[in-house]
């Protein structure tokens, strides 16, 4: 997992903080999420921009196309591998594991 040094940066618009309606965890670390947001958006907003590495080069991958066509954003949620983070809505208590 790649994380911003300065912590969460986004998830806000013009200073309006989203109401963190619930939390999910990324490798055990709690991250705020709002209803209807995708897992990819929740992670990105928390400064987590990659959550898997590639098979050959071990290169980090996160969001790229944002609409479900590139499969860069594959993520393991509650043990289920290969879900597209940009297409999977975050649900309370979701456990994301990176690696």
């Amino acid at each position, binding site marked *: 997992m790649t994380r911003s040094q300065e912590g969460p940066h986004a998830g806000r618009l013009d200073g309006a903080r989203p109401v963190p309606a619930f939390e999910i965890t990324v490798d055990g670390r709690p991250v705020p999420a709002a*209803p209807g947001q995708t897992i990819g958006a929740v992670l990105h907003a928390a400064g987590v921009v990659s959550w898997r590495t590639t098979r050959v080069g071990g290169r980090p991958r996160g*969001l790229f196309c944002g609409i479900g066509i590139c499969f860069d954003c594959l993520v393991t949620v509650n043990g289920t591998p290969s879900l597209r983070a940009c297409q999977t809505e975050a649900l309370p208590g979701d456990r994301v594991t990176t690696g």
Partner: protein
Amino acid sequence: MPGSGHEGPGTRDLAIVGAGPAGMAAAVAASRAGLDVVLVDAQARLGGQYFRHAPPGLRAGHPGTPQRGFGRFTRLAEALTGVDVRLGHRVWAVEKAVEKNAERNTAGNAGKAAGNDPGNEADQNPGKDAAAGFIVHCLAGTRDERRVTLRARRLLIATGAHDRPLPFPGWDLPGVLTAGGAQALLKGDLVPAGRTVVVAGTGPFLLPVAAGLAEAGARVAGVFEANGGAGLAPALAVRPGKLAEGAGYLWRLARRRVPYAVRHAVVEAHGGDRLTHVTVARLGRDWTPGARRTIACDALAVGYGFVPQIELATQLGCATEAGGDGEQVVVVDAGMRTSVPGVYAAGEPTGVGGADLAEAEGWIAGRAVAADLGRPVRPAPALSRRRDRLAAFGRAMQDAYPVRDGWKGWLRGDTLVCRCEEVPYARVREALALGATDARSVKLLARPGMGWCQGRVCGYAVARLAGETSPPPRRPVAHPVRLGDLAGLPDRADETQGTANDPAGEEAR
């Protein structure tokens, strides 16, 4: 052959794949004309790309959030009463529901899936004698996927487009997003792509992306348009109003002191395990890079136009042709009928031209299907004129924002061309040296396009590197499908609902 024995009780009049502006308008038009319509979309919410909006819960937390076109969207959405809307349904294949044996042995059928077979034009008939209809194979749900099979007498392909990226060193670093991806993240989830964002690529779409990010609180460190903006005159002659729109965006960017430069491109992205800065180069006429400088940023939104998503059309053998931007588009007549009787296409699949054009084509397609199924539909010449004008504008915009081959000079031997299979440029060159002469043979020898995305991301680049324009897509399986679902295992069969669903796939044939 409407009324033939192949139409089971679950057969709708019209199945529409894609609930963007085109699909929504078509659904409204067709259902108003009395058709039984099912509207299918992979996304969790209606609207496609242009009408993408944040979920209500999130919107409530951000009262002032701009949601462009939301009024228009709401009106369309409210008019969908009576339409069976299936969200979260990914269509992985479409099929003709005809007697297989009768069809197969006809010689004329042989070349059809090649997509471009001129012989297809022989059956360019007003879609009135389409065969027994179509089977739409879907996967429903994201986490707990299941197979759903729908059937309809007519099929409309309104599947929109996806971004067209170009490869450059570092483009696979986390923090680099497509322009549309950054836009989707902002519009759908209210998350700006980064704190400091560079926007680059070509085309008018860069402007709303940059303006949206700037207004959402991101620092936009620069907008870099690879073309010069010359050649816009023909487009603006067709739609002078667009000049004001473009000027409006530029003013919004200027107000936030966002630097805007033409004839510049991001030619390299840097960072260890995430983006930290980009190299921007001045471009020569052919996009050969000149003077360079670096800009610190934690996100890059980059896009070089769009690729129409037409694999469902080519699965059925619809004729395609190269559009002005080199991408394959579905050939349609004035009623949005494709070369395959009973199959229609609207929106970006017929040529990228924006949301207004997509919506106009949707109205036309919905009405044409109704007319072809014998419903009384009054002619709407104004609608056709509007479509023609918007399409002319779309083509003129493509001409004004071409992609020049100089981008190949941005590549290094170790630059990944295919992100999924991690194929570097050197391996593509090697395949060409071994006797590959087109995108398909490069793929066979070096694997670009064989991975998860099936060449959606690298397709344009690989085709250009092989010296051709993009060939029609061959994707018999448009979305990954679990073998258990494909097998139609009984334990999954129980989970489907409704008469139209056909878990085991038995009834469908």
